[in-house]
């Protein structure tokens, strides 16, 4: 489906990527620096700090995968938690019922997510806007209820706990570097998709669906492909969660859990590729700090979300752009005086 869509959009020369502007090059450079710093952190940070960072990295992938739909596709899906949860359950159920090795369980979970995404996406994408958001919410709740009720298969509300992961992955550095490697590779893949003709076509559909249709773009197939690609990333993030926590429980599939990557993407700036990455880190550590030190953390989180949505919808990326513009203006003034 994916390569097929690429072929379709490649026919339109006007959607080819333009030369990359300066701030995109700055983004690539800072992303490289962050990856190097993260790799170094594995050598010097304490096991407890690494465990937190490992969890944060999983959320980065969750946010990046979600933002392909949200930021690039303009589609608000509440089904992301279902794919995330199914990824985690692939490992947990494979271990519980089949003594499957981790890799097979993970592959099964990711494949199941992708297959379900085809069905969920094909039905949901026939609806528009708010109906789409609410229909994906219904699907997520459906999968949540199944995970919660089918006790024989999923252990029900208790969830599945146990030594489902090889020992080397449970050691702080082993687990951390494995997670870092997976997140960097998959995030890079999402970046390449986002800047490909396919990613640009998605943006074109978001901006003006009728016009994209008139240009001969098959809107439904592009959106469905994006839905499935996004689901695969969410499922991989879910696998990383199962590796980190050695567990899977129905809460992973609850609709409020679908809200989290959306929040991270909006916090960081959903109209940029790296915004959700920053948003995930900030959200994770803010959440960690607030739940430890403040009993009313939902209140603070809600106020933060409200302020961003109402007053700074471009998120942290928007603030960063403002700052760099301000710096350039100051430099220009200093230069003019000299």
């Amino acid at each position: 489906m994916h390569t097929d869509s690429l072929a379709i959009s490649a026919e339109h020369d006007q959607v080819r990527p333009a030369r990359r502007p300066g701030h995109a090059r700055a983004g690539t450079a800072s992303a490289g620096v962050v990856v190097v710093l993260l790799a170094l952190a594995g050598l010097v940070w304490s096991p407890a700090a690494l465990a937190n960072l490992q969890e944060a990295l999983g959320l980065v992938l969750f946010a990046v995968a979600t933002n392909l739909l949200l930021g690039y596709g303009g589609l608000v899906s509440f089904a992301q938690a279902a794919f995330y949860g199914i990824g985690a359950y692939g490992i947990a159920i494979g271990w519980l019922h089949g003594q499957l090795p981790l890799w097979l369980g993970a592959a099964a979970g990711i494949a199941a997510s992708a297959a379900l995404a085809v069905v969920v996406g094909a039905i949901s994408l026939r609806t528009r806007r708010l109906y789409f958001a609410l229909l994906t919410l219904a699907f997520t709740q459906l999968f949540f209820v199944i995970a919660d009720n089918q006790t024989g298969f999923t252990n029900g509300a208790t969830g599945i706990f146990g030594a489902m992961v090889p020992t080397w992955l449970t050691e702080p550095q082993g687990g951390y570097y494995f997670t870092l490697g997976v997140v960097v590779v998959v995030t890079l893949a999402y970046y390449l998709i986002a800047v490909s003709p396919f990613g640009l076509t998605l943006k074109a559909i978001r901006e003006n669906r009728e016009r994209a249709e008139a240009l001969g773009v098959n809107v439904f197939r592009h959106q469905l492909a994006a839905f499935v690609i996004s689901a695969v990333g969410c499922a991989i993030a879910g696998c990383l969660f199962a590796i980190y926590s050695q567990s899977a429980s129905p809460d992973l599939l609850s609709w409020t859990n679908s809200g989290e990557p959306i929040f991270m993407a909006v916090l960081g700036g959903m109209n940029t590729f790296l915004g959700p990455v920053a948003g995930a880190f900030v959200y994770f550590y803010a959440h960690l700090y607030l739940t430890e030190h403040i009993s009313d953390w939902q209140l603070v989180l809600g106020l933060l979300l409200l302020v961003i949505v109402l007053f700074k919808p471009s998120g942290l990326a928007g603030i960063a752009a403002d700052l760099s513009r301000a710096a350039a203006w100051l430099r220009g003034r200093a230069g003019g005086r000299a």
Partner: protein
Amino acid sequence: MHAVILDVAGTLSAAANLFVVAAGLTLVFGAMRIINMAHGSFYMYGAFTVTTVLGVSAGWRFWVALLAGAAVAAVAGLTVEVTVIRRLYDAEHLTQLLATYAVLLIFADVGQRIWGSGYRAVTPPAVLASGISVAGVQVPRYELFVIGVGVLVGLALWVMLARTRFGWLLRAAVEDPESVATGGTNLARLRTGVFVLGAFLAGLGGSLTAPLQSIAPGMDASIIVSVFIVVTIGGLGSVAGAAIGALLIGLAQTLGAEFFASWAASLIYLIMIVVLAIRPWGLLGVPER
């Protein structure tokens, strides 16, 4: 026969309760194109207010508590409209969902500060506590009362929308807000009025629920899912659609619990998926561009 009468009463009262809450949400969406997650908070505040007014004793105070629950929700609605919702007209639905979800989070913590994090329960007033004989079957009076309130709310909304100047202005304001404003109507006040009415209905629904289930934090997030399903099945913005959606969901809950217990909870989501697969804009909704 016995079981059937009880099932019918149970279905209708569950549907009536859902309808009262859903009508408020769909009314606001129909008049203002605003989707409001904090509707669940208004519902929860209504229920908790009833427990505060009543303590655990029933009696004449129940009627006061019922109205107090709705009134507290209406005041909460007024606050939210003035501070947040006003900035959301013409905003993307994502912005609306996120902003009102933020309001839901804030109300959840404020609510825990006021009412604590434990469970609370109240009993219906003595007048409505017993059963009443219908064809030889004892049907709980409180269920019949809830059905009555649901029917009254439905009738009142129909009269308001179809027969009053307020209703005409509302419908006109959706089609062409500028002309309505040019005609001398205070559009901002009209919208505030609708939003407060929606919050009032959410609070009334919560008050009605109070004697039927235990009241606890988290009921805000769970009711909003049920209500979203009801209004989406019916078609966003359609009050009659909300009534049909509520009946379908009430029926699914009652029959599902009786016949396929382990799949009962899945049934309402399956109904929504099937309805939208066939009619992507809901039963009585209008296709979007």
